[in-house]
């Protein structure tokens, strides 16, 4: 337990440092004194407004989204006992993306500003419900297959929307949104997803005991009194709420949910219950760091964070596959 507190404490310190860096870095570097004044004295000069209205909500959003992705990745890898599992596995991310794309496609976002995120959330919950309905009573393999099927369906519908987009701007926006970004998000987006991420995260965080038992196998877990059906539904609902809400405001951001648990696992002796909090913290660190990098890389302001996490994450994926091949009998 002490070791866990040490790891968590270290991750919190790193997260705090990256958080401060994300307030300083941007189109221009702001002096730390300016950021301090903006944060604590509510200064209304331009630098103050940039810090409090643009960079601060962006950093908070990165923490929420990265945390949700890291935590749900850890839970899903433990639940499926599959090291390649991540939030997209259950169709949640694709469902959220589809919901938001529908809002863009039909112009619902012009009716009410937050229609996109709300539709994304509805898509995530709908996709999870469909995954659960298809895969229940069939064991873990059926659930994963159902998730793949739902992901395929949502992806096909997104492609259809791109194919039939009413104008080039809408097609560009759908495509651009799908790349994932934290740019120009505000406190309204934080307020929108905060309750869902907190409730979803809390639902996932209490599953440690069940996931520990499940690491021994489904039958052993059942013999230890773990209700597997209930565990599955709690994972699906928690992931849908946390990741669905996150995806609905940032677009699809891949690999964070895959990477974070893997990096943490050796430090918690591969025990699922000890993996959850550090994975959430590391997910937040990874996404926040990627966001700072996206702002600082001399590629230009158009670099989307989802593209960057994919570029970073793909070599990790390759390494993981090679490692698994070597470990295979």
């Amino acid at each position, binding site marked *: 337990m002490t070791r866990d507190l040490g790891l968590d404490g270290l991750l919190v310190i790193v997260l705090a440092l990256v958080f401060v860096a994300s307030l300083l870095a*941007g*189109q*221009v570097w702001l002096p730390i004194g300016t950021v301090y004044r903006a944060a604590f004295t509510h200064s209304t000069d*331009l630098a103050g*407004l*940039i810090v409090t*209205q*643009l*960079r601060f909500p962006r950093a908070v959003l990165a923490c929420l989204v990265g945390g949700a992705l890291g935590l749900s990745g850890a839970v899903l890898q433990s639940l499926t006992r599959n090291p390649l599992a991540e939030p997209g596995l259950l169709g949640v991310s694709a469902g959220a993306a589809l919901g938001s794309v529908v809002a*863009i*496609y*039909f*112009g*619902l*976002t*012009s009716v009410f*500003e937050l229609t*996109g995120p709300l539709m994304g959330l509805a898509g995530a919950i709908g996709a999870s419900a469909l995954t659960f309905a298809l895969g229940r009573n069939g064991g873990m393999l059926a659930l994963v297959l159902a998730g793949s099927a739902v992901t395929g369906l949502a992806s096909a519908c997104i492609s259809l929307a791109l194919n039939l987009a*009413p*104008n080039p*701007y*809408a097609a*560009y*926006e759908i495509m*651009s*949104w799908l790349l994932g970004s934290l*740019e*120009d998000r*505000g*406190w*309204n987006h934080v307020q929108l997803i905060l309750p869902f991420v907190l409730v979803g995260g809390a639902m996932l965080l209490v599953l440690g005991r069940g996931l520990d038992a499940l690491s021994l196998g489904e039958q052993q877990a059942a013999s230890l009194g773990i209700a597997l059906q209930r565990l599955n539904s709690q994972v699906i609902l928690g992931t849908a709420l946390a990741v669905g809400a996150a995806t609905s405001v940032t677009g699809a951001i891949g690999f964070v949910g895959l990477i974070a648990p893997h990096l943490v696992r050796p430090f918690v002796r591969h025990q699922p219950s000890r993996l959850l909090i550090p994975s959430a913290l590391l997910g937040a660190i990874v996404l926040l760091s990627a966001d700072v990098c996206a702002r600082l890389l001399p590629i*230009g*302001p*158009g670099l989307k964070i989802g593209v960057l996490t994919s570029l970073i994450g793909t070599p990790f994926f390759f390494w993981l596959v090679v490692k698994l091949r070597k470990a295979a009998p």
Partner: protein
Amino acid sequence: MAVLEVPPANDFEEVRSVTRLVGRAVGESARAERLLEKMDEILRDLAASRPTHTLRVASWDGSGAVPGENSLFAELVRAAGGTNAAPTGRGGAALFGMEWLLLAHPDVLAYGAADREEPSLRADTDQHPLLLKLYGQRRIAYPEVLFSCGVPESAEAARELRALLTRVMPKPTSP
């Protein structure tokens, strides 16, 4: 069939050469000159009534490319009596986020209005609370189609832009 390749016209000098090029190609040189005379007359009027305060105008649609310093938009803004607040050295187009936009200190935000408004996130991107707070009263919508291809009628677009800018121009304070 003869094919004439016409380069894009991003300023009034290029409009002149392109219009003459097309006029010659279709045997309507005199008509091309008449169009250019009318264009130059409008430009002279605009130059003669140039506002004392030069407004910095940024075209902002919240996503994608925005017209840079060598664009027709910048030329029309100049003709209308303002300056384009897009990043320097970015040529015809630039990409920028809201943070850059604020740091460019534009006086006016200009939104390109399409002929047919169809579902698009662009209609929603200008609703950021910070933009509403800072630029709620200093936003204009310009007819995007007239700012895309340089033609003699672009001078008319510059005149309309002048009228739009006049509406949001700060009123002189009484001594």
